């Protein structure tokens, strides 16, 4: 049953078999995607025609590798920029929210807390369309009322940033709150008694204590933004992010360039996962 009890051999073997199958199921699509990025073929199919790096470095008319593929490189750059601003915004606001809900008292606090959690249970598609609608309504209002055209209210870069921020900030709040709850408030009181004001205490003491949680939350926020699809789909215009761009390419038929991008994404995110895990392990 469990490790401290006697278990029959059949039980252990069949359990190991199940776990083996589960991990095969988990990794099969990723492994195949990676392997086919190096196949010397025009399509991401088997048979194996030999190893090539051309889908990364190639610059032939019929085989444009990733590093020469303007459109894909640009979408990667757009995604990086979006993720940067989303991270900045959601870490700032999320940390404020953590302080607000952990350390401040005000009327309707629990109602506001509930509202802060709600993006967790709103499907991303709905979040996308309602922000699209609202920005459109605002844009129309500004144009009719004052005759100003505000580019922010049209689908595009900043609307994508705001749309992703609206739910990623909740995750940051939860991560930072969890750490803030463990903070020993007598440290703050001591600093206050020694003549520091509230903001000096937060800056020099509390934020130092929160730093690992804030960095971890920033990493998660960056990744979530980088790979968001559902909310972005409705808010994007001509400057497409990487997931949207990949989606459009896969829909129209695929080339091994997509495998090459996927390979880099898989390697990159795995590295980030290992680093994140290493640091969170060290913290404990």
């Amino acid at each position: 049953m469990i490790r401290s009890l006697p278990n029959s051999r059949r039980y252990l073997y069949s359990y190991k078999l199940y776990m083996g199958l589960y991990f095969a199921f988990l990794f099969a699509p990723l492994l195949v995607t990676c392997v086919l990025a190096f196949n010397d073929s025009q399509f991401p199919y088997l048979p194996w025609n030999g190893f090539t790096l051309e889908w990364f470095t190639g610059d032939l008319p019929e085989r444009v590798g990733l590093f020469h593929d303007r459109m894909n490189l640009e979408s990667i750059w757009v995604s990086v920029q979006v993720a940067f601003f989303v991270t900045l915004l959601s870490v700032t606001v999320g940390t404020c929210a953590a302080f607000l809900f952990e350390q401040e008292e005000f009327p309707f606090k629990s109602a506001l807390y509930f509202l802060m959690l709600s993006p967790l249970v709103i499907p991303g598609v709905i979040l996308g369309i309602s922000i699209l609608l609202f920005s459109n309504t605002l844009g129309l209002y500004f144009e009719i009322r004052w005759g100003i055209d505000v580019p922010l209210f049209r689908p595009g870069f900043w609307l994508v940033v705001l749309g992703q921020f609206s739910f990623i900030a909740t995750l940051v709040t939860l991560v930072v709150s969890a750490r803030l709850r463990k903070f020993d408030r007598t440290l703050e009181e001591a600093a206050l008694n020694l003549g520091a004001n509230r903001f000096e205490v937060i800056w020099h003491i509390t934020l130092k204590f929160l730093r690992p949680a804030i960095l971890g939350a920033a990493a998660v926020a960056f990744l979530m933004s980088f790979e968001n699809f559902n909310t972005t789909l409705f808010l994007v215009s001509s400057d497409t992010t990487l997931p949207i761009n990949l989606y459009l390419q896969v829909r129209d038929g695929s080339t091994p360039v997509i495998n090459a991008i996927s390979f880099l994404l898989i390697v990159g995110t795995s590295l980030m996962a290992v680093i994140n895990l290493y640091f969170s392990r060290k913290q404990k």
Partner: protein
Amino acid sequence: MTMNRRFQITLPLICFLTPVLLWLVLMIVLPHMDLLRMSLRAEDDFGNAIWSFSNYMAFFVEPIYWLTFVRTAVYSILVTLMTFIVAMPVAFYITKVVAPRFQGFLMMLLLMPFWVSELVRVYGWMILLRESGVINHFLIRLGILNQPIEMLYNDVTMIMGLVYTSMLFMAVPLVSVLESLDDSLIEAAYDLGANMGTILFRIVIPHAMPGIVSGSIVVFMLTLGNYLTPNMIGGKNALWFTEQIYNQFIASFNWNQGSAFGFLLLALSSLVIWVGLKLTRQKLSRVAQ
């Protein structure tokens, strides 16, 4: 939180409250009120915008709309159930059966695929399963098949894809809730002669209930609102409700109808989550942690 302490407006409170209020009001409350407002607007015969329930009426009158809605809901529940059945033994193995020194490694293996974009994972399944895909290639090589068969674009594959996509959100809460289960409870039950079924249903599952509920809520919500996986693996036959919303917004440019669909989806997901919480007597704020 003491009730008798009077609250005062201090500078820190204002500094923390302002950005949070801006975020929640501008990005969450007002957009969803606008969604509701748009869903209740329609054009009359003269092209003037009026208040009307016609968008909601269209949903109930056209069978394709509400059938897709029901289908999406039923499949989402099925996916949630299957995710639980697949993930539960995995979580139990990692927390209770495997030697402790392998735990960290297995946990990392479990999490790793989900750091990768959903699109990449779905794309991987497409390469594996399509007519010219890797699995067909091996089946023909081994002589099991004479002709390649299309394994994409059917319900079974679509459900498998959805289970795969949302697996993490079930496995992680289950692992954390099983970690807090004291082994000695299971040992005691075993010593007293309980069999595996009894231990599972009388000890493990009742203890794991908070994790099961929070995992199920997240998986259900994500599956219901998923666009990518049904669209790419299910193809034209997916008939997923988010596609109807997308079509109304992007293809037909009928934003009022799309808003009504969006609001219905939001209502359904909120309702199921509320019922789930009520049935198990839990609070959203606890589940979120």
